[in-house]
């Protein structure tokens, strides 16, 4: 241990103590003048402890135990943190640190109930620590319920539409939790206990039917949190109506808890080989193939929904669902390259998605709206936010200088190497959609015509721009030198029991072609540098035009005429994919609601009708008949 702890407290205990203290302190002193800084300090301490734990794990410690032990009603509950849990924990504490830093400044003071935002953020971190370090299935379920309800607490702050979105989320989350509860009960039935090792021991003699139900329940239960396709309707509104930094935290990390649990249950516990053995008879389709195709659809469909959004936050959150598909697809390829690609994408996504969301909220902070039709031309007014958003969308689209490219490249490579052409086509189509929609995002906010009322907009305060730029910087650095991030990914990959991917600072060395980002970025920067040199030094006859010099097609336009809209941004594409938007998933969801209402009315009728004596008579006769039958009449 890099630093000795006062008594026999392990570092995991220390982290739990910090998170718990943070929850209580921030709930009490969140709105105090120094509340924001206290929050940043506490989350920073948590991040530091996590990094220390990382170093400890890298030095070969198998897993970090916690002295928190509970035996309740004959069930032993223990908490230990391994590499996989540590990897997601790093993302959690990092995201919490950046969002609390963002809230520390002017943004925090503007909020009506900063106290609740700080408190729920710290509560989410605490619950995620408990989930990530769960030592057995029961601990996993309890942690899972805590995380779901903590996210619910975070979502209902804003009231109005946020409450409706949170209510809808709660229903989905609870349905998922009940599927998970059924799964751990099935395991308990087979293994006689909730322990991970008990489950592994009982796996060989489980019938294929039970394995299929276990697979379906785990994938379904955790898939809801990751908003895989049939259950994707709740995430966008829920995550975008949550105020400011909390939304960034939810986007960056909260959905990934589903991925962690999927990896834990399907890969670590059940294992790729058992899953490969599960085949649909006569068709050769494996269970992982089904989940891979769900991931593929989740990559494509939400991305093209994002394309149609007119609200910046909705656009980004719909993309969040799409990116989740990439991560799951990468991992399901089951080769070291694919798994490393998937996990790296989790890290990269967290960095650029958070930068993007924080940038969008900076725009909201200044202009008061996130509606793409109401914005435009802010590049001159908010240059730093523009830079952060630019680097973010390059990462989101997966283009070279940023880290997004590295992980997407690895996923494409893994798909191609393992001969899965259809899935790789889906990946490319997804990326195409992403590129189109991010351009719409940056064009409508920063480029084009500046609105009259936004003339005096000032840049967002340093307390908001600095976190964005640091995040974008991390994105660039890990893009430039992916080896740093890959060493973090190794911890998780080792804990998953998958062979490690040989890599160096610049990138990946493979028999089928290696990637060295040092060269790629070096050449790119060099080319841009030469181009800039030629453009600025040699051709210096620049003609200075101010933003309102709008001559278009021989017709003078005064400043107040609007010609900058996001409506019908891609008319051709809209016509092509228009017919696909029949919304049959929405109708399915609506159908479930109506089914519950109709059967409820049916039972109301039964309870209020005056036929009860007849019902009693019928049940008595059937009961006697059954009793007679069971007892053998006249025997």
């Amino acid at each position, binding site marked *: 241990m890099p630093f000795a702890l006062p008594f026999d407290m392990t570092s995991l205990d220390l982290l739990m103590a910090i998170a718990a203290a943070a929850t209580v302190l921030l709930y009490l002193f969140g709105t105090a003048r120094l509340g924001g800084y206290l929050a940043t300090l506490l989350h920073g301490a948590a991040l530091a402890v996590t990094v220390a734990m990382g170093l400890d794990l890298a030095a070969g410690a198998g897993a970090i135990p916690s002295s928190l032990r509970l035996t309740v009603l004959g069930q032993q509950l223990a908490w230990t943190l391994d590499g996989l849990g540590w990897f997601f924990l790093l993302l959690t504490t990092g995201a919490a640190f950046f969002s609390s830093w963002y809230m520390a400044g002017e943004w925090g003071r503007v909020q009506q109930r900063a106290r609740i935002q700080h408190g729920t953020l710290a509560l989410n971190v605490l619950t995620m620590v408990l989930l990530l370090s769960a030592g057995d299935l029961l601990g996993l379920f*309890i942690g899972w319920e805590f995380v779901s309800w903590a996210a619910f607490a975070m979502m209902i702050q804003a009231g109005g539409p946020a409450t409706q979105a949170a209510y809808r989320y709660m229903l989905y989350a609870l349905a998922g939790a009940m599927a998970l509860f059924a799964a751990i009960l*099935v395991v308990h039935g087979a293994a006689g206990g909730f322990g991970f090792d008990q489950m592994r021991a009982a796996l060989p003699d489980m019938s294929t039917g039970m394995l299929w139900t276990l697979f379906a329940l785990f994938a379904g239960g955790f898939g809801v949190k990751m908003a895989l396709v049939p259950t994707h309707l709740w995430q966008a509104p829920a995550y975008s109506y949550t105020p400011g930094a909390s939304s960034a935290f939810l986007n960056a990390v909260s959905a990934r808890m589903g991925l962690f649990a999927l990896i834990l249950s399907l890969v670590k516990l059940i294992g790729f080989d058992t899953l490969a053995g599960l085949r649909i008879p006569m068709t050769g389709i494996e269970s992982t193939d089904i989940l891979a195709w769900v991931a593929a659809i989740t990559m494509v469909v939400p991305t093209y929904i994002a394309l149609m959004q007119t609200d910046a936050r909705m656009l980004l959150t719909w993309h969040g669902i799409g990116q989740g598909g990439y991560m799951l697809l990468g991992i399901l390829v089951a080769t070291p390259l694919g798994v490393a690609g998937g996990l790296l994408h989790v890290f990269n996504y967290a960095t650029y998605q958070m930068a993007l969301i924080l940038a969008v909220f900076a725009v909201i902070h200044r202009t008061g709206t996130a509606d793409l039709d109401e914005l435009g031309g802010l590049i001159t007014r908010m240059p730093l936010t523009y830079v952060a958003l630019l680097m973010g969308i390059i990462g989101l689209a997966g283009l070279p200088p940023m880290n997004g490219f590295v992980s997407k490249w690895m996923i494409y490579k893994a798909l191609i190497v393992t001969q899965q052409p259809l899935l790789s086509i889906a990946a490319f189509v997804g990326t195409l959609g992403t590129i189109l929609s991010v351009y719409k995002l940056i064009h409508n906010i920063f480029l084009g015509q500046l609105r009259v009322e936004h003339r005096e907009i000032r840049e967002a305060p340093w307390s908001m721009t600095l976190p964005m730029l640091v995040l974008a910087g991390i994105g660039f650095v890990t893009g430039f030198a992916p080896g740093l991030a890959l060493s973090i990914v190794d911890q998780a990959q080792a804990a998953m029991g998958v062979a490690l991917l040989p890599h160096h600072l610049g990138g990946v060395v493979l028999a089928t072609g290696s990637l060295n980002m040092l060269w790629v970025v070096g050449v790119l920067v060099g080319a841009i540098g030469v181009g800039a040199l030629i453009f600025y030094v040699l051709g210096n006859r620049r003609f200075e035009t101010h933003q309102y010099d709008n001559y278009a097609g021989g017709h003078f336009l005064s400043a107040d005429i609007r010609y900058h809209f996001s409506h019908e941004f891609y008319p051709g594409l809209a016509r092509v994919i228009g017919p696909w938007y029949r919304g049959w998933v929405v109708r399915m969801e609506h159908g479930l609601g109506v089914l*519950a209402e109709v059967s409820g009315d049916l039972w109301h009728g039964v309870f209020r009708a005056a036929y009860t004596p007849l019902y009693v008579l019928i049940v008595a006769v059937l009961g006697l008949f059954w009793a007679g039958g069971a007892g053998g009449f006249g025997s």
Partner: protein
Amino acid sequence: MTLTAHHVVLPVALPLLVAFLLPLVGRLSDGLARLLAQLTTLAVAVIALLLWPAASDGGALVSAMGGFAAPIGIVFYADKLALMFVVALAVGLLLFRPRREHDSTKVQTLWLLLLAGGSGLVLSGDLFNIFVFYEITAVATYGLGASAHTGAGYGASLRYLLLSALGSAFALLGIALVYAAAGTLNLADLSQLAGERLTGPMGLTAFVLMVLGFGVKAELFPVNTWVPEVYTAAPTRVTAVLAGVVSKLAMVVILRLLVLLFQDPAALGFLLLLGAIGVAAGELAAFRSRDLHRTFAYSSIAQLGLMAVAFSIPGHAGVLAGIAVALHHLVVKPAFFVLADRWRGEIAGLTGAGRTSPLAAGLFVLLSLSIIGIPPLPGFWAKLMLFKAAIDAGGAGNLTAVAIILAATVIEAAYLFRVVGILYGTAPAGRPPLRFTLGELAPGLLLGAVLIAATVSVAPLGDGLTAMAADSADAAAYASRVLPGGN
């Protein structure tokens, strides 16, 4: 005065004595009558607590009435389970004393007789004696149900009376069959004879009839249509006690029948079926009800269905789960009804009520989380015990029951958090806010505190319940304690 086993009859005899004299005292002064009634209820609670240590070390206190030994005379059997429910009933009646406008000497008399009937129901060890005490409880419930003096109150109580009388006739037919088949009415004696006398069509028919009879008060599926009407029409404090405590007493009777007389898989299957249908019916109907009273009435039908499923699982794991669900519901439901007392009428009309009385809204959220079964609240541990027992017992019936309960939990969360959303909504201007006075909310807050205390001390509580369940699920121990030398 050292308490011997024979003092087990006091929780029944004392309230009866005072109830008989109360009309006389009431003629002198109403206040004195009310005070005397409450003192008696307190005395019963104290006696039950004093008897607890004697019951816990000796396993159970057995008292033969009139000095006549087991199969001949009537026997009172007070084990920890029974004493626990007697204390719960007494404390419930004290905590939810009828309000001034619904109170009179006659109501106080009915209150005491409900205490006597309820205590007798769980303490008695004789089948017909249980039927008599069940009738006392039932008739007291008809009276209390109509004590609101509204048309709806009279109508609901009448329909409940007719349904319960039909059930009681069935139960009496069942008891007659048992007596004709086995020749004795004492539960211990019957449990020994059950092996060869009560199996086959005769025993099962008796079981079906008795379940339909005692099921009326235990809110089992076909015979629980009275629940929404009576719980809505009766004064809310009466409903709190009925839903909270009295329905559990009837379920304890069904538990005794199951454990001692009918360990037959067909009988367990029948109860499981009724329980599962009850859970589904209760939750779906609650999802569609428009006022809080009806919602909580249907929710208590679902919880009792849960208990029926738990008790239908053979062995002490099922009994433990059932007792855990019963105790949890015993704390949560009355608190819910305390809230429903002030938040009357359409749920839609309650927008913003949570903001005017944040304490009440906070209590509502805590209770909802616990009844849905969110860790670490006790509701979760009760449901976990139920599911574990069902899965360990295996069988298609248990699995479908678990699936139904899991689906019902989602619906339960749907209608409870729909109300939370409305409570925290923004109140339309111009409507007087519904504000709780602390006095009104006190019983609810007390029960909320009990819930939190149970959350903290779930481990020791769990061990205590496990021991109690193991003891009350053991038919042989019951027979050996009651029958002299076990003939």
